[in-house]
Structure formats: structure tokens, C-alpha cells
């Protein structure tokens, strides 16, 4: 199944999803498509004026361009997902998209899709970390069972 993760660039979450045989929907692969496109020349991410305009699908014109530009990339990943995992309170190193308003909108959009969503808090101890990994594995395995 296709699993949206939040933060959408978390390598740890993406790796856990892949290990259980699912497809993680991650930011890196979307950015790779952009930066390897030879027709676009807008470094560093090859995002152009068109992207924040595409983001109007997710946020109104009065919303800052940085939020709309991010949503132009994350929004379709959320739309495409069969299930999702949200990790709140994670430090920068775990995965980060830089903008608190985009975080709020992404999490809201995931929740309102009515797909299976696993809500998690960033662990603060070894015990919590083990429990968290078990929870994630159980969630991902249950999706497989439901899926048949």
C-alpha cells in the first residue's frame, strides 16, 4: 500500500514502511523528479512560480507562497495515500519541512481523508522507542491484512 508519512522527508519512517513491504510516499523522490528535469532551471529545488500556483488547490491565495509551494508537492502525496503515519514533536534531524503552517495543513489534510492513520509522538526514551517501532510495525502489518 502507499503510505504517506509526516514529516514527509523522514528517512527513518520511510525505511520502516519499506521494511514491511509498503511504498513510502516521500518528499525526496518528488524533489528528485524536479531536479533531474532538464527543462527546469530554478535551483536549488527546481520549484518555479508555477508550483505555488498549483498549491492553490490546497490553500487560498492569501496563504503565503512558501506554504502553497510546499503543498504543491506534499498535497498530491497525501491525496494518493492509502494510509498514513504522523509523527508529532520530532526534532529537525528526524525530518522537517521548515514551516509550521504547512505542518498544520498537512496533518489536517491527512486526518480528513478518512484513511487509516497512525498518530505518534516522538519518543524520549529507549523504552518508548521500542514501543513506537512495535506500534508502527503492527499498524503496517494490519494494513496488509485488511488489504487481503
Amino acid at each position, binding site marked *: 500500500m502507499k503510505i504517506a508519512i509526516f514529516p514527509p522527508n523522514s528517512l527513518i519512517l520511510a525505511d520502516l514502511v519499506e521494511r514491511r513491504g509498503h511504498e513510502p510516499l516521500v518528499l525526496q523522490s518528488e524533489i528528485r523528479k524536479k531536479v533531474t528535469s532538464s527543462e527546469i532551471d530554478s535551483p536549488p529545488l527546481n520549484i518555479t512560480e508555477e508550483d505555488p500556483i498549483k498549491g492553490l488547490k490546497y490553500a487560498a491565495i492569501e496563504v503565503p507562497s512558501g506554504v502553497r509551494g*510546499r503543498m504543491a508537492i506534499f498535497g498530491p502525496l497525501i491525496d494518493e495515500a492509502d494510509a498514513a503515519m504522523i509523527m508529532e514533536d520530532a526534532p529537525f534531524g528526524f525530518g522537517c519541512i521548515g514551516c509550521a503552517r504547512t505542518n498544520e495543513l498537512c496533518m489536517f489534510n491527512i486526518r480528513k481523508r478518512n484513511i487509516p492513520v497512525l498518530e505518534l509522538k516522538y519518543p524520549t526514551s529507549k523504552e518508548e522507542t521500542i514501543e513506537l517501532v512495535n506500534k508502527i510495525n503492527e499498524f503496517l502489518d494490519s494494513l496488509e491484512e485488511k488489504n487481503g
Partner: protein
Amino acid sequence: MVKIAQISCGTDYSGVQKEIEKAAETFGAEIVIPEADLDYIDEAYGKFGFNAASSGIRLMIARAMSIVEGKSDADAVFIATCFRCAEGALLRNELRRFIQQNTNLPVVTYSFTERTKADELFIRMEALSTIVARKSLLAREKQEGLTMGIDSGSTTTKVVLMEDNKIIGTGWLPTTDVIENAKVGIKDALEGTGYKQSDIEGIGVTGYGRLTIGKYLNADLIQEELSVNSKGAVYLADHQRGEATVLDIGGMDNKVITVNDGIPDNFTMGGICAGASGRFLEITSRRLGVDISELGPLALKGDHKKALLNSYCIVFGIQDLVTSLAAGGSKPDVASAACYSVAEQVYEQQLQEIDVREPLIQVGGTSLIEGLVDAVSKTLGNIDVIVPEYSQYIGAVGSALIVSGLSTK
């Protein structure tokens, strides 16, 4: 090469990073990103004390701290955040203040949208580059010798002749032919002074026509209007230290510049409709049958609340004016309402984009309309508004002042 440190949030996801770099390169500058690793972000964030929700904003804090603490090398700083981001707007100003208070680096701020193009950033990057390159010149607070400043604006050409910190001659005429107008302006400014053009020790030019006139006259200084106007305004207002805002409600468009110790750090320009410009007041005075010079005193006698003039559009504004007069509104009330209409539109459309700092130095031809100056002050909560003598000549005065440090003759 001038190194401009970029402290920003959202430029990559808005697709404007390339435009910023292009604008800097055009003026011989290079954009550099200050160093900040993960540990330093937490450390700097803790030290600065602003609880920012966005990690991009926290990174801005760390980059600003890195410059202040000397961990990153830069000649100037460009601070930018997304337009309409409240957290970004708060930090843009706080970081600007933080850097200005703790370093001697020039700072320019900007709020961008996905539509921001390099040419909109040109004047800011040019100002940053010239502030760095001409730092000692811009520090000049006194004019010396015999110098001339020419401001070749889109609407009018202004010329001043200065000698030993005094304005001794002026020329002012509508711009129709850039070079011919400058020649007439120079002649007018020299008239009655006993000097001829060859006596002038230095000529400085600014405004839209600066390159053409500068080349024609072989000027000693050709400089963009942002730094020149700031310098001219604080010099004439005798407010060369500390913060101030320079407001120029022009005939066709409006400019607002915020300054710190006479050096500009933010700028907004535009005018959605002529209803928010001097043109509307010109038409108002014609309709009231008074000369534009009489409109200001007339407005001061009126009560703007007694006439309804609040349209954003110049066409509907004139309709409102005619309706108010037909309904028996007095000329002073209508004149006052016209001044308030312009002041309120400038406030709503432009001043909200910038952090207005006291005192506000009002300049340009419209600053001579007392009713408008009063309306601007009241609209901004009775802010202290200074209209210096020769307020319509700030660009020319700024040029004459700065070029006096460059005089070669």
C-alpha cells in the same frame, strides 16, 4: 565581490531563490548563506528568545546569530520571508533590528510572493552593493564646497546647487526630455548665484534618468534613488541618527523607505490606483476651482467626516466628490475628505507592508499640501510627521550632499 548574506524562509519553495541570486549578480554581488548546524540552531534560538513555531524561522535566527557572532563572513544582509506570513514578518523586523544594533552591516528586508522577479529586487541589491562600496560617502552628514544634485524623476526634474552646507539655487520642471530638462534645471539653479557650470566641483545624479544624464554631464556620482533619497530626507529633516520613515506620495506612484542612521533598509513602491496619489488631489483642486497650492490650507479648515470620499478608484472618487458638492458639501469639507481619502489609501495599500518608524519624514511635491500631511499624521494615530524645507528636492539634495565627498575638481 560584495558578499550579501541571505537570511530567509520560503524562498526555495516559492521558486524565487534564482531571482534573488540573479538580482545580486547584476550588481556585482554574491549571495552567501550563513553557516548554522543543528546544535547551533538550538543554541542561537535559545539565546535570541523568540518562540518561533516554524523551523525555517528558527534557522533564520541561527543565521542572523552566526553573522552577529562573527561565525559567518558578509558585507551586507538581505532578509526575506513570504508575504502574508505573520511569524515571518515579526522575525524579519526583529532580526533586522538585531543585526543593525550589533553590527555595522547594511540590511535590506523584503517580503516576496511567487511572482517576485529579479527586476523587483534590483533596486534593493543595487542599494546594498552601493552602501557597501560607498560606505564612507553615505556616512557624510555635511555638504562641502560647491556641488550640484540632479534628480531626473519620471514626472519632474529637480536640481539644487549647494555651497558649504546651504542650498543656494534650485531648478524644478516637468520631465519631458531628460537631457534638455536637466540643462534648463541647471541654468535655473545657477541663476543669480554668480556661478557658472564650470565652477561646480562635483555633480551627482539620481532618478530614472540618472544614467542618461550622468553620461551626458560626465557626472561624478550616479546613484539609485533609494539611498540618495534616504540621505537627502534625513539631512533636510536634521534627523541623521536613529530610525525614521520617508514617505513620498507622488504624482503617479508612492514610495515609502524606512531608514536607520540615514541608511535605507526597506522600501515599498507602487500605487494600485491614482486615487491614492497626488493626481487625485490635483483633480480635486481643479474641480473645487482652487489652485493646488490653496488646497492644503483649505482642507485644514474643513471636516473630512462631513463629506464621503472613500473610493479606491480615481473615477469613482471624482464621482463621490461631485456628489458631495451637489449635496451641499462645503469646499473645505470636500478638500479635507480628499486629503483623508489619499492618506487612508496609502495607509491601507502601502504603509501596512512596512514597519512605520517615527518620525515620518514626508517629502515630494504633495508634502507641501498641509491638509494631506495632517491627514497622514491622524491616519497613523497622530504620528510625528516632519516636512523639511525643500522637501520636494530630497533626491537632488541627497546627490549634492553625497557627491561633495567625491569632488575631484
